[in-house]
């Protein structure tokens, strides 16, 4: 019984069904274990966590400079900014906005720098449903290649105060 002392000879090998199951479960665990490094080398979607320490003020200045030099238009009073393919793109998170609006070319690769000026935020591209954590004091760099064109929403999915649901932004991907 599970609530009584086990028989003195409890330390013995399991029978065939249990051995079969433990073996199958172990093989499945190994498959899942190998899948992650495999995808790291051969898959196209990875979160490698490239990040650098950055002061919020310093990051805010980088964003302003980036917007000044790369502005191509305006959407609802917010600058639309497009960098050259392969270049650095800056996105600033703060209560409760994503700044600026980012324009990218389909199938081109960009280095997207995201940081927060205040609390933690969640960078969530919808309706694609890709999600990354954004921390104040850390520049989170995503080497990102949009593979579909259109207008995408950025929503915040890390609680950041009462206006959390107001925190939306835009990514425009053109052909």
């Amino acid at each position, binding site marked *: *019984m*599970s*609530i*009584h*002392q*086990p028989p*003195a000879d*409890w*330390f*013995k*090998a*399991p029978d065939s*069904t*249990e051995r079969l*199951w*433990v073996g199958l*479960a*172990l093989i*499945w*665990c190994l498959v*899942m*274990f190998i899948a*992650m*490094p495999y995808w790291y080398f051969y*898959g*196209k*979607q*990875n*979160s490698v*966590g*490239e*990040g650098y320490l950055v002061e919020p003020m310093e990051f805010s200045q980088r964003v302003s400079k980036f917007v000044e030099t790369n502005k191509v238009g305006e959407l*609802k009073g917010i600058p639309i900014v497009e960098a050259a393919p392969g270049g650095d793109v800056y996105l600033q998170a703060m209560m409760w*906005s994503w700044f600026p609006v980012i324009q990218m070319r389909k199938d081109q*690769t960009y280095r997207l720098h995201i940081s927060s000026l205040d*609390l*933690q935020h969640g960078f969530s591209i919808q*309706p*694609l*449903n*890709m*999600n*990354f*954590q*954004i*921390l*104040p*004091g850390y520049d989170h760099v*995503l080497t*990102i290649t949009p593979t*579909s064109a259109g207008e995408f929403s950025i*929503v915040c*999915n890390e*609680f950041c105060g*009462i*206006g*959390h*649901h*107001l925190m*939306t932004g835009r990514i425009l991907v053109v052909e």
Partner: protein
Amino acid sequence: MTTTTIGDVPFEGGASGNHQGAVRSCDTTGLPVCLGAQRFIKLHAVVAVVWLLIGGTAAILIALTRWPAVHLLPADWYYRLLTLHGLDMLIFMILNFEIAILYFAGTTLLNCRLASTKAAWLAFALMLIGGIMVNIAVLNGSSDVLLTSYVPLKASPWFYLGIILLAVGALVAVINFLATLYIAKRDHTYEGSVPLVVFGATAAAIIAVVTLLHGAVVMIPTWLWSMGVVEYIDPAWYRITWWALGHMSQQINVCAMVSVWYLLGTLTVGAQPVSQLVCRGAFVLYILFINVASAHHILVDPAVGASWKIWNTGYAMYLAVLASMIHGLTVPASIEVAQRKKGFNRGLFGWLVAAPWSNPGFSGFFLSLIIFGFGGGITGVVLGTQQINIMAHNTLRIPGHFHVTVVGGTALAFMAVTYYVVPLIFQREFYLKTWCRIQPWLFGGGITLMSIGMSFAGSYGVPRRHWDMEFTGAMFSTGFDSGAHLMLGLMGVGAIIAVTGLLVFVLLVVAAVFFGRSNAGRAMTPWHEERQVAEKFRTEDTAGDDEHSMPGTLVLALFFLACFVVYYFANWMWLADVWHVR
């Protein structure tokens, strides 16, 4: 016909306990109940039910807010009650219940007295004061920081202090349990190895010590920071350390739940573990490999590299997954073997159909096993896969997952064992037995529906911890597919059913504990009587005499593995469709 099984298995241990008179023999099981420990089991259980009631009230209000068609609460109260719900359920309710389980396992099952009554009082008082402090700090609006209180979100110092007191109290209780183990060994109150349930409880206690120490490491500096003594808490450091507390504590729950499964298997059908070595080995895997599970929560964080993330999810986590998969076989196998021994031998699943389903202790336990395995286990491993997490982090898929582990699994198992704790420890009979029998189905069914709704809404991208998924008033209008709305409706309906099951449970327990008929001096009224129906699953053949005949369980387990494999690879396929990112 035979009634309940527990009367058939009188206590076999030595009568030489060290209670010095303060002990009674259970009128149903013959087990020795240490009266000193019994008092604290009662106290912690009652407090756990109070937290359950408060947490459950918050649950229905926040669920009805997230259902867009209802959208009940204003934003500030939504986040406030979400904070309260997480803390009262995941920390205060569950820890109080677990301390009660530890005291029971350490004393009754080892025929030993509780090591220290003073320490038990201290632990109880600290856990209660900490709980009240945190509840007040949240309800007065000074600590809207959610369960995780990610810095630099700041709560009132009382909030952190309350959590620290709770953690210290729980640590004192766990050490009291470990000291009880030591005394039992020293005084030879038992011979040989400890029972499996005690072994599982000890695994939970060991993980609890490590977890609670991490809690101190993260909460004490944060408390000082909230008072302005410490200037800066690094948010990346906070997340890693907080989750060493947050995720590891879920492994305490898993260990406690699995121990309760084995306990209920014995109490309801007289099951015994098929292989003690396998069951115990699986508990050891939990202790050894769960300590880096905090990695699950920072899979898409900056400043933590891919190799660190992959190693800590892949290597360590999957050996803990292996442990859960092992229990997933051995627990139902023990039921099958016991049932076949009784003659319920017809077909692959006659043993299961003829099981004592009218016993809420059994139905609650078996539902908990199924919900935890198929719902929580599979989703948990998939969401915790490093790259797949990109599609899941901070979406409703996450609470969809953990409500079928910690609620449909752990909380339901704890409810199921309560159908024995009240008659055996409180020595009171339940009223309204029919409602007792319905309750696990209401609660388990509701939670399952709710979690399915949450998981699929999350697959559409709906964020967790979010007041308005229609983003009313936001600069850039955004919304979700109508399928997401449908799924949130399903979530709402499931939540209503589940909270109904919760309230029924609380009412039944309160009525029994405070107004129930005493059964002191005689055996408890059995929950289950064998029906004629069950007889047709009895066969004359003797295949059931085989100690290890478990074909039905093996089929169930292979079906489980097939579901697991399909869901796992489907997620990789979905991942391959999103933008490329490194």
